């Protein structure tokens, strides 16, 4: 079976260092690199900005205007499409372990157990989590932060006196995401499982069977599906029902002899872009599983470590562990 290929529509890019994350700042494709740089693909050629000089980028979050990065220099910085770098925080050398940001300019970061949130107006608030924090996400509604830590997750209103709400489940929770409608909270765990809570009644769901840790979680724009990495196919869980994925089997998209390392739902369409540990990238349509090749297999390619769509789903930017990168422009 010969799958359709979009490989001819991919422009290869050279990142020159392992890629930590990808984003579109406005129309500008941008890559955050492990070596502390942000690479901006502006019309007159790539521009390399030292967001964290002589340091490594450990955590990233992107908004439509800025790439937020946290480094092992203890700094949180925001790099804009024009190359200006704004310092958001300096945690005095403490590693920045997790980061979240949203389009109004609010950001949150953690180092160890300490979580800080900074709203769009620049007011900061701090919270001491019960253990080290590995994942942060803003809730879709309200100025509320979801925090993943050992033993569960916490929802915190940085600017309100309301006590934080705790969601308990034994084990180490590494990353966190909330469904676009704000009904479900999902964490990826050390033990190669996902854990979900329905926020309203804390009803719990376990989504297991992964051979590796899930490091990439992506919601379809309608919130009906959650695509995840960590298996030799993209594992896509149905969240449309009131009960979420409870008692339902996930879709397995693009089964291959390599693990999916990144998954990114295309905005406004039921298509998942999925990158593999062997450097291959496929597009997979949900729910029928039809496949289109973006980056075909070749010997000794690095794992895909970053994958993101622009806001209209017209372009897909990717980066890999070996410093390779590329930009797919979807044919009209």
């Amino acid at each position, binding site marked *: 079976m010969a799958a359709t290929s979009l490989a001819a529509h991919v422009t290869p890019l050279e990142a020159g260092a392992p890629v930590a994350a990808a984003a579109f700042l406005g129309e500008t494709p941008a890559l955050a690199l492990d070596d502390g740089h942000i690479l901006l693909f502006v019309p007159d050629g790539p521009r390399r900005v030292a967001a964290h000089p002589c340091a490594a980028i*450990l955590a990233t979050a992107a908004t439509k205007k800025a790439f937020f990065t946290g480094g092992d220099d203890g700094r949180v910085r925001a790099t804009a499409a024009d190359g200006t770098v704004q310092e958001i925080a300096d945690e005095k050398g403490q590693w920045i372990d997790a980061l979240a940001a949203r389009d109004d300019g609010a950001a949150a970061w953690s180092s160890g157990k300490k979580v800080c949130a900074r709203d769009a107006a620049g007011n900061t608030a701090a919270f001491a989590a019960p253990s080290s924090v590995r994942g942060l996400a803003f809730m879709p509604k309200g100025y509320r932060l979801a925090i993943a830590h050992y033993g569960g997750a916490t929802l915190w209103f940085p600017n309100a006196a309301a006590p934080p709400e705790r969601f308990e489940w034994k084990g180490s929770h590494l990353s966190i995401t909330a469904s676009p409608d704000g009904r479900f909270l999902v964490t990826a765990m050390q033990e190669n499982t996902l854990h979900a809570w329905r926020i309203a009644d804390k009803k719990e769901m376990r989504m297991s069977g992964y051979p590796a840790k899930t490091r990439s979680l992506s919601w379809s724009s309608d919130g009906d599906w959650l695509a995840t990495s960590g298996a030799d196919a993209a594992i896509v869980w149905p969240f449309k029902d009131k009960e979420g994925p409870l008692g339902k089997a996930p879709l397995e998209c693009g089964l291959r002899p390599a693990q999916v390392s990144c998954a990114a739902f295309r905005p406004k369409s039921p298509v998942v872009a999925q990158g593999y540990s062997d450097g291959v990238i496929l597009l997979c349509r949900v729910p029928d599983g039809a496949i289109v090749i973006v980056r075909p297999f070749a010997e000794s390619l690095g794992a895909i470590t970053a994958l993101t769509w622009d806001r209209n789903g017209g372009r897909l930017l990717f980066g890999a562990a070996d410093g390779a990168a590329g930009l797919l422009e979807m044919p009209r």
Partner: protein
Amino acid sequence: MNEKIPVTVLTGYLGAGKTTLLNRILSEGHGQRFAVIVNEFGEIGIDNGLVIGADEEVFEMNNGCVCCTVRGDLIRIIEGLLKRRSRFDAIIVETTGLADPAPVAQTFFADAAVREAARLDAVVTVADAKFLAERLRDAPEAKTQIAFADVIILNKIDLVDAVAIHDTEARIRAINPYAKLLKASKCAVPLDAILGRNAFDLERILEIEPGFLDGEGHHDHHGHAGDGHGHAGAAAPLAHHHGEEMQSVSMSIEGDVHPEKFLPWLQDYIQKEGASILRSKGILSFKDEQKRFVFQGVHMLLEGELQREWKPGEKRLSKLVFIGRNLNAEEIRQGFAACKA
């Protein structure tokens, strides 16, 4: 792929001299660059560019195995360090004086990403020659650190007399006859005796324990499987320390064992008693198998493989050793003896 990063774990009771050893390693590292993960961050000056403070967050893996604890902070730190892979050659993890080395070691077995990038080189325990004997009586942590060690530095020997050193050595050997034991003052030991040990490399189980296979070492392997001898195989010459709840049990079978009997027995026994077994190692001669089977374990985590072929003329022996707390030597011996081919 890149070579795996060697990781040396430094343990030792409070005041034994861990920081002295650490600074010695860093200043005499002969061009090796280290990333150092410390606990009392910033308290004592450490002369190294890449020092990371850790929280020593120990948690249970949610996998039904109660003693499978790992260091969550270590997983996070090693993942972060991998982004600076070109800036260091090896990692040193310094634990607090009261720490159990097992969660550190288990982190390198239990986390796939860590295991892929790094390998545990050795657990090095620094002990105070003057106070160790006392600590072994009143501090279970000190006992665990000695039992777990691949290398033990008996430090500050200049502060005690020969009789006391001999006695302390005997106590150490009663608990752990297999570790390399170095006597020193101010932790002045050759670095190649503590770094690059490959103590967790199945390939090198023999090299690092010269007395392990030949049975002729300074410790006597009484516990020959099947001989019905009531004496635990723990460090027989040091019989006056048999009261130790922490001990080693070693035994051997001349000739082959049945793999289809041995492997299930080992799995079951480790599953049942793993909480009290700190370390286990073995070299087995399987019936009708040209290659030696070697295994090692930390509590309930086991790894084993068929290794090199038995050499022509080499005596086919099956040997195993457990180091742990309140081990039932008789039960182990009987279980092992039943596997004889």
